């Protein structure tokens, strides 16, 4: 099936997200607008207006009722998915780089940027899942990342831990109840920032991507690096596919770092690796610039990528994708019959 091109944004995409049913895709861009799209045909479902700056991040709650966004206007906002109504605005002293709901949707975290006079923090709010309810202005938790600023963060299984990636390439585990730092591990190369952190469906492990050109699978409980995927380009994003044991990586040199030669070679491809064997198994071309984010359909039937080129490309996996098995996987499948 040909990919669907979503061309409603005027500037670079920064994050794309499926809702839990996978019928909607939410996208945010430097153009200040939040868009929602039908994933099966690419028609626009709606837009969410109000932010006054570039948007960095978006997440949808597990009931597909609430949408959280954050951006360069120093606000984190909560919207009603169906009506586009702005429900709540939380203001900060610096940009919001990442938002994420807890697995049950009752908590929302935000990562704030470090700026003169402002420390990098991870803040948590209790969320009432009812769109008609009043939302709190009180933070239930505030973690200060003074060692190295946090770039990404999310909730583990049972919202037990908050796992964060940092500018210095390290990954931290915090107790999500009291904010205490439990572990910090040097998961990626020093001073090459962690650019993305996405979860396995059961949140017992996550994948991180980095400017160090690798992605890693990390055990959420122990922070042990379980798998490493080595590429030849700085990575902006990494996602884990359900059903098949693959991971999808996206990145590419930023325009200002690209020499004419490497631009021609083009590294603006989504790369598929086998999750367990850590070998590259395929690439998908299409974008004219770096891939800033890749997201996988929650049922594992497709993926979408948001590019520096301003487009979202939506792909539905074909039969060959599902049929592909390594010999040892086939053996294993037969042994289980």
């Amino acid at each position, binding site marked *: 099936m040909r990919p669907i091109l979503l061309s409603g944004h005027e500037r670079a995409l920064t994050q794309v997200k499926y809702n839990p049913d996978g019928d909607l895709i939410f996208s945010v861009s430097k153009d200040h607008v939040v868009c929602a799209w039908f994933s099966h045909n690419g028609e626009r479902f709606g837009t969410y207006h109000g932010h006054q700056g570039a948007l960095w991040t978006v997440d949808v709650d597990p009931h597909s009722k609430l949408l959280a966004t954050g951006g360069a206007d120093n606000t984190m906002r909560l919207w009603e998915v169906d009506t586009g109504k702005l429900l709540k605005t939380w203001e900060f002293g610096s940009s919001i780089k990442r938002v994420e709901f807890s697995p049950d949707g009752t908590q929302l975290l935000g990562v704030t940027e470090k700026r003169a006079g402002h420390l990098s923090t991870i803040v948590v709010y209790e969320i009432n899942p009812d769109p008609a309810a009043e939302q709190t202005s009180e933070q239930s938790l505030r973690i200060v990342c003074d060692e190295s600023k946090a770039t990404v963060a999310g909730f583990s*299984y049972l919202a037990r831990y908050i796992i964060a990636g940092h500018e210095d390439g390290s990954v931290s585990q915090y107790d999500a109840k009291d904010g205490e730092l439990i572990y910090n591990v040097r998961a990626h190369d020093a001073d090459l920032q962690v650019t993305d952190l996405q979860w396995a469906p059961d949140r017992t*492990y996550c994948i991180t991507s980095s400017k160090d050109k690798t992605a890693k699978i990390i055990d959420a409980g122990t922070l042990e690096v379980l798998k490493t995927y080595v590429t030849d380009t700085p990575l902006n994003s990494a996602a884990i596919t359900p059903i098949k044991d693959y991971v999808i990586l996206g990145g590419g040199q930023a325009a200002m770092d690209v020499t004419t030669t490497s631009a021609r070679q083009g590294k603006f491809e989504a790369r598929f690796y086998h999750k*367990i064997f850590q070998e590259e198994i395929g690439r998908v071309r299409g974008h004219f610039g770096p891939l800033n984010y890749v997201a996988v359909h929650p049922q594992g039937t497709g993926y979408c990528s948001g590019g520096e080129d301003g487009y979202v490309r939506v792909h539905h996996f074909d039969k060959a994708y599902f049929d592909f098995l390594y*010999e040892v996987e086939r053996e294993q499948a037969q042994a289980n019959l």
Partner: protein
Amino acid sequence: QDLAKKNTANRQVVEQRRRLLQEWLGWRESMIEMLKEEGAEIELNGGKIRSEDDEGAEEIE
């Protein structure tokens, strides 16, 4: 002789993959056990919250 060498190399690659697969499946099994002990309903349902009209769904707080 070249063929024999190649076969040995291939066999080693396959052995390595078999080992990685078993190791991964073993770890996954232990994680699922852990989630069951914790009563992690949403996590065991692939991250999806069971809706109210799902039959036989039980809420664990």
